[in-house]
């Protein structure tokens, strides 16, 4: 059984929680469908979004230079980081040289990718994640299980207990309104005492050097504007959009596709540093250039992190984000994970290592294609998963049994005669074999699947028979 299957099994052992997870995310998917249906030209919009992203990826370095120039002209200091450790030390130096020790953070997926929190804490800096969901998992020492809904794996009682232990809410209190109220008070004191604010970035506009941040809570804006004097925006290099006209496409798409809202509560555009404040932007590579050069997987850089492919994925919904063991779970995460961008490992061994560690993820999919059909930037997600399977199998990163079986099945499928003969045998065998032959502990395949009742004849046989009569 693969690592993902094992973790998925653990997740499914709490039946009511697992079915809540499944239903809730499907509910988000349905809200998305409603919001999408309100836009007449949705498909046109998706096509435009996709082509803008293609254009950006085709000319990425030029657009980054344009963005850097515009931002510098605005009085913003731009840094580039090759990898996570570079980003971490840039940030630590900025904080240290100013003697700052209190940091509030928002939109943390990118800094999580670099393990910034651990690094700063190790160096004596207090880092507070301010998104409610992110704060909850920070308290619990967990990683997010969804890129938009980081604490979706938790029930209210678990959160109530965490808050009771960490911020002193009454024991047994699990009311979302009361817990949110307590978090508001707790985090407000952090905002009002912060010296520096670190944010992620949803979009970066090349023509003006603007960074755009979308949140529902307003935590990024509170972090930046309540008290912090040092503002650091961290972005992956693929976040660039050329113009505001292009940006409009994405601000129309993002929230509809993510949560089914017409737009996030706050869509904030920061261009010039505020009075008495410093504004820095760190542009991170961390393996992205390498993915950009890869003709098969380059498209995955179009991702705007809406999370829709997770909500719609029948495997994700029933196995939970943590079963993927990677920062970004679900279909898109399964494409990125084998590339990996762990730090402090030499490039070559790092890649092999990630391919090995996450070799099961491209197989954690039914290839139903639902992900690709909801993706707002038209990434061919299921096809990329399929491509990974080919590569990993060739590189012998899948289990030897699977390889032998696949080879055998491949031969059968390639031959007309063998195929119809095998079909006959299988239809008979499945009907007459005792269940134990398939559903035993030795056959991992049977643990994860239930065979359909086989038809008495194949389509070919049926066609020939009915044609005759």
């Amino acid at each position, binding site marked *: 059984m693969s690592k993902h299957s094992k973790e998925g099994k653990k997740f499914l052992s709490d039946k009511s929680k697992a079915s809540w997870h499944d239903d*809730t995310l499907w*509910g*988000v998917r349905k809200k998305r469908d409603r919001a999408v249906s309100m*836009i007449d030209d949705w498909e046109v919009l998706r096509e435009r979004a996709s082509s803008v992203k293609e254009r950006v990826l085709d000319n990425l370095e030029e657009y980054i230079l344009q963005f850097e120039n515009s931002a510098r002209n*605005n009085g913003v200091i731009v840094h580039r980081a090759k990898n996570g450790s570079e980003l971490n030390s840039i940030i630590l130096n900025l904080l240290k040289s100013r003697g700052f020790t209190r940091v509030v953070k928002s939109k943390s997926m990118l800094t999580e990718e670099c393990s910034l929190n651990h690094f700063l804490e190790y160096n004596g800096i207090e880092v507070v994640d301010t*998104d*409610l*969901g992110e704060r*909850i998992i920070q308290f619990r020492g967990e990683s997010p299980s969804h890129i938009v*809904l*980081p*604490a*979706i794996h*938790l*029930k*209210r009682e678990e*959160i109530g207990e965490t808050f009771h232990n960490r911020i002193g809410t009454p024991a047994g209190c699990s009311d*979302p*309104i009361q*817990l*949110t*109220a307590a*978090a*508001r*008070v707790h*985090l*407000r004191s952090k*905002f009002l005492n912060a010296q520096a604010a670190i944010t992620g970035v949803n979009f970066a*506009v090349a023509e*003006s*050097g*603007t960074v755009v941040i979308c949140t*529902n*809570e*307003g*935590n990024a*804006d*509170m972090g*930046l*504007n*309540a008290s912090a004097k040092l503002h650091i925006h961290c972005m992956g290099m693929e976040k660039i959009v050329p113009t*505001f*006209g292009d*940006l*409009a496409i994405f*601000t*129309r798409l993002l929230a509809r596709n993510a949560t089914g*809202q*017409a*737009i996030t*509560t*706050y*869509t*904030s*555009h*920061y*261009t*010039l*540093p*505020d009075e008495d404040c410093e504004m820095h932007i760190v542009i991170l590579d961390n393996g992205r250039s390498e993915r950009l050069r890869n003709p098969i997987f380059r498209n995955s850089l179009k991702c705007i992190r809406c999370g829709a492919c997770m909500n719609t994925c029948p495997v994700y919904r029933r196995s939970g984000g943590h079963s993927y063991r990677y920062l970004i779970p679900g279909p898109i995460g399964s494409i990125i994970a084998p590339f990996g961008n762990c730090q402090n490992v030499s490039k070559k061994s790092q890649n092999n290592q990630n391919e090995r560690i996450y070799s099961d993820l491209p197989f954690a999919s039914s290839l139903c294609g639902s992900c690709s059909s909801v993706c707002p930037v038209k990434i061919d997600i299921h096809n990329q998963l399929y491509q990974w399977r080919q590569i990993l199998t060739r590189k012998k990163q899948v289990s030897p049994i699977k390889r032998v079986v696949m080879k055998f099945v491949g031969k059968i499928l390639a031959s007309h005669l063998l195929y119809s003969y095998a079909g006959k045998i299988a239809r008979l065998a499945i009907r007459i074999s005792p269940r134990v032959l398939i559903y035993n502990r030795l056959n991992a395949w049977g643990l994860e699947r239930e065979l359909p009742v086989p038809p008495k004849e194949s389509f070919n046989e049926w066609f020939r028979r009915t044609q005759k009569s």
Partner: protein
Amino acid sequence: MELIEIFTSRVNESGAQLHIAPDIEEAYRLAEELVLSNSGDGERFISEQEYTIAEGIYGVAENGGIWLDSTSVSSRVRPFIAENLALIISKSKICSNMEELYRVVSPASTGFGVLISGPSKTADIEQCLVYGAHGAIKHYVILY
């Protein structure tokens, strides 16, 4: 006229309270009345009684959002820190969607701009929608 109808229904969906005023003076008067009358409500969250009233530059029909920039508020934190937020917007300043918005507002020129749609919200606890995660708990839109 259709734009206004779409705008008002999106404003309602965003969790904001919509009010109509005959003119701008009346809009301000109403805004003040609303933010002050309700500021006690926030006790459940925090004892501060802050509120912000601001005039929006443009509204967006497609999503019910209202655009503010550095000229709309005395400091950038105002629209976010207030428990009660009232945004005033003229019926003549409603555009259809984001593409049009960015054409009419020159979004980078004042250094900071934000489109706000409804009160601050979170659903991070079991997907239950709660208003007032960090920013405004009550959000009023006064259309004149």
